[in-house]
């Protein structure tokens, strides 16, 4: 019954030898197990249910990551779509700004057109004649016009002034040189119709008109835009 004195005395009985063997086996198994835990891959040793659990975890994670990928891709598409739309909108706005600039006379314009020169040494050409010429040029599709270096726009007005005329406050004298951008053939024909500008000017004493269609003319006179004081954009 007194095991402790036996062990202490180191007398190798059968019991102590057996205990020693067991302790050795335990140490051996301990070392082996610890080492195998550190070194071997866990999957070959794992139970089927553990493997199934690991697989479930992995597929759940895969699903989550897939959802994340989808979401990120949608975000990416949306953002790149936004960029595309923005640049299209910007291009459109720029195009409109150019169009309106030509219309309002704030941008120079170039293109096919004609030069129309009215020589009037006797001063018989009146503002009305010039106004008629402008109207007929507009009717024939003139897109940008200038007269002796003054841009003609929608609000332009002509007033008789001494021997010449005043266009928007600038005094002009003969010869009157129109530079017009538009379909040159149509413009030239419009000038030549019976009762048109050429006819009228030819009927005046000493006055002479020269119509000169050109493949390219430049209307580079500009006009300062005055912001409207009363008018505001309105939704119908």
């Amino acid at each position: 019954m007194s095991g402790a004195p036996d062990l202490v005395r180191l007398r190798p009985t059968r019991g102590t030898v057996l205990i020693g063997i067991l302790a050795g086996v335990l140490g051996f198994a301990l070392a082996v197990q610890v080492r195998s835990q550190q070194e071997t891959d866990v999957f070959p040793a794992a139970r089927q249910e553990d493997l199934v659990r690991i697989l479930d975890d992995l597929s759940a994670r895969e699903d989550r990551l897939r959802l994340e990928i989808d979401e990120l891709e949608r975000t990416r598409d949306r953002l790149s779509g936004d960029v595309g739309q923005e640049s299209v909108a910007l291009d459109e706005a720029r195009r409109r700004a150019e169009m309106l600039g030509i219309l309002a006379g704030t941008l120079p314009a170039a293109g096919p057109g004609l030069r129309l020169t009215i020589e009037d040494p006797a001063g018989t050409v009146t503002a009305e004649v010039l106004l008629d010429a402008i109207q007929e040029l507009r009717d024939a599709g003139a897109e940008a016009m200038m007269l002796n270096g003054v841009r003609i726009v929608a609000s332009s007005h002509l007033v008789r002034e001494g021997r010449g005329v005043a266009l928007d406050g600038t005094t002009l004298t003969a010869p009157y040189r129109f530079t017009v951008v538009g379909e040159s053939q149509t413009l030239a024909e419009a000038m030549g119709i019976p009762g048109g500008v050429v006819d009228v000017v030819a009927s005046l004493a000493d006055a002479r008109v020269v119509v000169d269609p050109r493949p390219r003319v430049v209307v580079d006179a500009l006009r300062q835009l005055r912001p409207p004081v009363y008018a505001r954009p309105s939704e119908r």
Partner: protein
Amino acid sequence: MIPAVALAIGVALGLLVQPSVPIALQPYLPIAVVAALDAVFGGVRAMLDGIFDDRVFVVSFVSNAVVAAVMVFVGDQLGVGGQLSTAVIVVLGIRIFQNLAAIRRHLFRA
């Protein structure tokens, strides 16, 4: 003294030889080791209590290890191996704690 030396020899042997655990035994070896540890602590406690017995120790050591491994094996066959090995570890852990508490009381009187 002899068991401690034998334990050290066993550990050294395991580290030197570096045998690989057969795959069939891999789920059971750790459980058996924990069960044997429980038996060892129980033996130390019995020694300190003055009731140590070679035969009891040998039988409890072997039967502890074998029963623990067999329980896990049966659990594996029934499809509850994971849970059953957890249960065995928990029970053995509790016993190891109790034995260690008794040893501590003997050694430190606290």
